[in-house]
């Protein structure tokens, strides 16, 4: 029990299950926010694998989400409508369709491969430069997906994608990402990378290859981002390049930072709380009744989230959770039984 802190894994997982179960009590118009929150947990969890463990900022993870979303989207549009939906696409894309589950595996594989390829040059840079250079990846991905109609719909929507990410699938996907992230951070590789985060010079001195460790995490993070992107497109049933661009990069970073970037629990808490707030504000922009009529002007959403993110960074840079994993040690001491 002491060697394996089960609470650290079970806490977030039970939280995700609770969110999934809670979602079933709501009508479909509200339920989608629960699914969305769970997918945000998957994206932020994927982002955490790299940013949290390495301490290097990345704005590029959203591009792996985009690759995953578009890959899973264009490969699952039903075969009979495909020639009309993607008239210019390569024959292999136009003429074949695969199932939703296979498309998720494809999304994860492509996300991981893409991350590995761009990670090779970028991870050699110093931390700060690497973070900024990830913008180059984001811009390239956005530009190509937007204009190359042989691989997708270009500036239009990928639509008519089967909406197979229900609450159950979203919950399972989020749990899978969190479990993999947890397994990674407990593994030898994860510990090596965390050592480089705490003190790069010392880590190098004991023989850790910083470049290689960052590249592993970047690749794993890319694969999980791709998977999350696949779940995203199967939730909405459609996707456009603007949905997986700067605003999503901003929102997911805000979630990670608000929760606490250096713990998995922080990533989960941040994703759930900020996406919940975001959903509420989105509703409030349309007008919502909370005892009184609340009708905020369009655009308030990002102002509030931006203020929250800046305030957390200035006042409590380690986030809501203080960068700690969930621990029930206090309670355990008083009740004398293992709670998890």
């Amino acid at each position, binding site marked *: 029990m002491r060697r394996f802190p089960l609470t650290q894994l079970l806490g977030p997982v039970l939280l995700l299950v609770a969110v999934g179960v809670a979602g079933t009590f709501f009508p479909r118009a509200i339920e989608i926010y629960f699914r969305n929150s769970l997918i945000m947990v998957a994206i932020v969890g994927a982002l955490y694998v790299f940013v949290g463990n390495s301490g290097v900022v990345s704005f590029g993870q959203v591009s792996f989400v985009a690759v995953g979303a578009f890959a899973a989207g264009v490969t699952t549009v039903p075969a009979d409508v495909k020639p009309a939906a993607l008239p210019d696409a390569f024959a292999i894309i136009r003429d074949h369709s695969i199932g939703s589950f296979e498309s998720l595996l494809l999304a994860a594989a492509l996300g991981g491969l893409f991350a590995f390829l761009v990670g090779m040059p970028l991870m*050699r840079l110093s931390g700060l430069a690497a973070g900024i250079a990830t913008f180059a990846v984001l*811009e390239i991905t956005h530009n190509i997906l937007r204009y190359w109609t042989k691989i997708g719909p270009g500036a239009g929507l990928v639509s008519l994608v089967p909406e197979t990410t229900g609450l159950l699938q979203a919950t399972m996907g989020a749990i899978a990402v969190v479990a993999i992230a947890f397994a990674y951070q407990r593994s030898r590789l994860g510990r090596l990378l965390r050592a480089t985060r705490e003190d790069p010079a010392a880590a190098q001195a004991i023989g850790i290859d910083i470049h290689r460790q960052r590249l592993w995490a970047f690749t794993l993070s890319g694969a999980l981002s791709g998977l999350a992107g696949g779940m995203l497109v199967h939730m909405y049933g459609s996707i456009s390049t603007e949905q997986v661009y700067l605003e999503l990069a901003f929102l997911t970073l805000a979630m990670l930072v608000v929760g606490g970037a250096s713990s998995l629990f922080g990533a989960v808490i941040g994703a759930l709380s900020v996406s919940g707030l975001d959903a509420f504000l989105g509703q409030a922009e349309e007008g919502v009744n909370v005892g009184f009529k609340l009708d905020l002007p369009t655009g308030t959403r990002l102002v509030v989230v931006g203020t929250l993110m800046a305030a957390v960074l200035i006042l409590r840079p380690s986030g809501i959770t203080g960068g700690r994993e969930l621990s029930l040690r206090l309670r355990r001491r008083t009740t004398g039984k293992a709670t998890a």
Partner: protein
Amino acid sequence: MSTLVASFDAQTLVDAVGLGAVYALMAVGIGLVFGVLRLVNFAYGQLVMAGAYTLALTSSWPLAAGIAMCFVVVVALSLAMERLVFRPLRTQSPAVMLVATFAIAFLLQSIALLKFGALGKPASSLASLNQAVSFAGMDIRKVTIVAIVVAVAALGALALLLRRTSIGLHMRAAATDFHTARLLGVRANTVIAFAVLLSGLLAAAVAVMLTVQTPLVTSDFGLKETIIVLVGVVVGGIDRLGSATLGGFAIGFMIGLLGGILPTDKSVYLPSLVFALVILVLLLRPAGLFTRGRASVVDRV
């Protein structure tokens, strides 16, 4: 035919230098603050945006008054940003500071969207600078000449300031080693405030020139340019002001040049081409294009 091609090339070249000049000014503005604070100001583009909105809202004023107002607003916002955001974050890691300014950038952009709407405001008081003058068979827009002249003048003045005045000496000392500089009597707040002030002045100048090229001011004004310049700064070498500036110039120059050379049906892929080139350069020279010495994965402590 051959003369036509030659003049086209020379013209592209001049336009590319003009774009490079504007980006170089932004790179200096970002590099100055980075030098003393180790802070990459992602919200630099929103300073430019604030300047552009000021120009749009003062369109009915006399030109000089509008431009003066633009400088006042941008410098004030820049100093406020330092006081409210940079200063509390001064002890944090560069990564935290970068994310924080990213948040500020989105915050300011969202506020602008909320306040001024999505349609954009026209800033046309300087539209006359879009006229071209014919020179040696080329049609050069006046703003290109203005950009080049302003950049050369500003960079020259800055070089003099950094090398010939005591505040310049203090800034260079702080950029080399902030702690030792403080021990030797360099006043941290003064140096930082001065760097932020200069960076604000440059942002205002950039705002004036960008509104000539893009007269419709929207809330994402300056955002794309900031991303490009930041990447350019990294390509050039972020640790020194000179290499950072050259990096900013180089990426602007490349965009101008490739934009002129690419056939029209391929020009939508210009960003991909430029950023792919960036990744290639970083693969070959991870420490920066204009730096000497080896790259280190470990940030300078």
